[in-house]
């Protein structure tokens, strides 16, 4: 097998220090997909940042742009149909979007690694798990087969796979779901990346295994100081591990806050809706609360605030004109709602209009069109 030729790291990586800014700084990112129904605007000016050793949760419903954001940072979007139409992704001060593909590949896997949701389909079915982990060392570090195997087994031990050496030669389908996700994690941390992006890492797992996997991620992060971006729709998962939370809606960050503060007093009606819809053990009667309607069709995002058709506080100002900007509220917190101060103060009154509570798409669609 040909040795991978050594590609130089982008200039600026070596000289960067944390005082130069955030480890990862995403600014005004825009991503579009060409679809049969027109351009789907998956990400519309998302901005956020991540520092060393920090855990940032990106929270949102399906279709809010979480996964697309992750794949854009990794540079693994399929284009076409996807194209990045604007913005910057600064990693160690270098804009990844401007790097040539060869140098981008140095970052991928080595500096920024990713854990996918469904490890069964994300691992190659025809290669042993050991081989797939060892491949990281062989390709990126030019290790020999034996060296790579030793390191892979150490990694498997580190993510608590019992009998790691014996299971090196097993195939993905021979593992349980939780073990497979551990293999994924081992593969992603192989080269000690500075950023780890976990895209719904526990969604495919049952609850007890979910907790074990999150515990493992927390442990590894404490050990290595990796910056972790945790993409999820599960507020329960976030509460335990995240330092900060970014709430995403229709491809935009609508609220940024420290995890505790967001849970204590959400500063955006959408965050509030998400929190209210967590089932609670101490409420045994009545219907479960849900946010009415559906996320917007990305080919025709409502004018004004994208959330307005589903928002129980929406006023005329929300339905027309400019998108409300993300306003800094101080204390590491920002929100993109016109009425944020009233909302936080608890004085905001619902507009009294019936928000569609059914989940029938037709009704939701109609509601969206009226806006």
């Amino acid at each position, binding site marked *: 097998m040909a040795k*991978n030729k050594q590609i130089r790291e982008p200039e600026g990586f070596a000289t960067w220090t944390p005082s130069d800014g955030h480890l990862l700084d995403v600014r005004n990112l825009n991503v579009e997909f060409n679809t049969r129904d027109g351009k789907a605007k998956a990400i519309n000016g998302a901005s956020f940042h991540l520092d060393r050793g920090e855990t940032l949760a990106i929270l949102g419903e399906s279709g809010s742009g979480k996964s697309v954001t992750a*794949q854009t940072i*990794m540079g*693994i979007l*399929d284009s076409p149909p996807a194209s990045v139409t604007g913005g910057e992704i600064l990693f160690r001060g270098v804009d990844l979007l401007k790097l040539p593909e060869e140098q981008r*590949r*140095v*970052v*991928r*896997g*080595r500096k920024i*690694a*990713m854990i*996918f949701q*469904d490890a069964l*389909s*994300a*691992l*190659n*079915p*025809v290669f042993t798990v050991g081989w797939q982990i060892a*491949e*990281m060392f062989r*390709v*990126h570090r030019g290790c020999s087969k034996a060296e790579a195997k030793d390191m892979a087994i150490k990694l498997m031990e580190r993510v608590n796979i019992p009998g790691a050496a014996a299971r090196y030669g097993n*195939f993905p*389908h021979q593992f349980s779901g939780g073990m497979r996700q551990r293999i994924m994690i081992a*593969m992603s941390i192989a080269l000690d990346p500075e950023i780890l992006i976990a895209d719904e890492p526990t969604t495919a797992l049952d609850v007890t295994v979910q907790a074990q996997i999150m515990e493992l991620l927390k442990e590894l992060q404490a050990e290595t100081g990796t910056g972790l971006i945790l993409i999820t729709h599960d507020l329960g998962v976030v509460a335990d591990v995240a330092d900060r939370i970014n709430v995403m809606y229709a491809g935009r960050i609508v609220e940024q806050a420290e995890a505790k503060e967001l849970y204590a007093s959400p500063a955006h009606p959408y965050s509030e809706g998400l929190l209210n819809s967590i089932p609670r053990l101490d409420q045994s009667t009545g219907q479960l609360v849900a946010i009415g309607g559906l996320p917007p069709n990305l080919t025709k995002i409502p004018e004004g605030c994208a959330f307005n058709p589903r928002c129980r506080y929406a006023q005329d100002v929300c339905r027309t004109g400019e998108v409300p900007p993300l306003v800094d509220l101080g204390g590491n917190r920002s929100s993109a709602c016109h009425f944020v101060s009233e909302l936080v103060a608890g004085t905001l009154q619902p507009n009294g209009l019936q928000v569609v509570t059914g989940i029938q798409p037709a009704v939701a669609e109609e509601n969206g069109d009226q806006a």
Partner: protein
Amino acid sequence: MGTYVLRRILQMIPVIIGTTFLIYWMVFSLGDPTIGRCGERPCPQAYVDKIHAEYNLDQPLIIQYVRYLGKVLHGDFGTSFNGTTVADQLMNRWPVTFKVAIIAIIFEALIGIAAGILAGLRRRSFWDSLVFVSTLVIISIPSFVLGSVAQMVFGVKLQWFAVTATQGTWNQLLLPGLVLGSLSMAYIARLTRNSLADNLSSDFVRTARAKGLSNGRIVGIHTFRNSLIPVVTFIGADFGALMGGAIVTERIFNIPGIGGYVFQSIQTKDATAVVGTITMLVLVFLVMNLIVDLLYGALDPRIGHE
């Protein structure tokens, strides 16, 4: 693995007995095999009696069949009505059929897979459309047209290839092999293209990209093997089918192969030859099937042969 192969071979025994019995029954029992042997007129009684005695035709079917099977186990496939032994005919004809099959398989695998990769890697490109249209053309042309036209153009007019293959040498069999392999070539091209395209958009290829691997490695190592699994099994099954000879192509190019023998035997109502040949074909097909299944297990670890 060893026990798997053994089990499969043991399973073949009832299959062979069942199929040969069916064939024997259909050929010998559905109508007297001497009918139609003597042109427009009925055969002389002496001839009918001789044949009946030789093949135990007056005994019950089971007895006839068991006696036949006993002979086959000793390598005696019987003697054709024209006096040659079926075993001799098969020994002479099989190498020719084998050669045509090899040429066809190599051609269809090489060109088919190459065209499939070309189309699969650049979906919706000019190459993809070219492969789509040209395979469509090949699939829609009946093989006797393709064979006759190829013989006329490349054999007679351009004289690039031999017109007929009466001796059954490699050189002579080149053009018939290409004609025979062209239909499967078209199917292999499409199968490879779709399989590759599917795998390229799979989650594990996205993982490979996220691992920072080069494009060549992503396609060559992480996609290729997965994509070839259905193609290899198709080629294996096709080889089994090709070993049965090709009646149309063998007739066009006058090839002394198995296909021509079967055709001729059916036409002349040569019951012994038909049963003997088809018994062998069943065997070849079963063995090819076993090999394909073993290959499948070797290529795809999810298929276990414990």
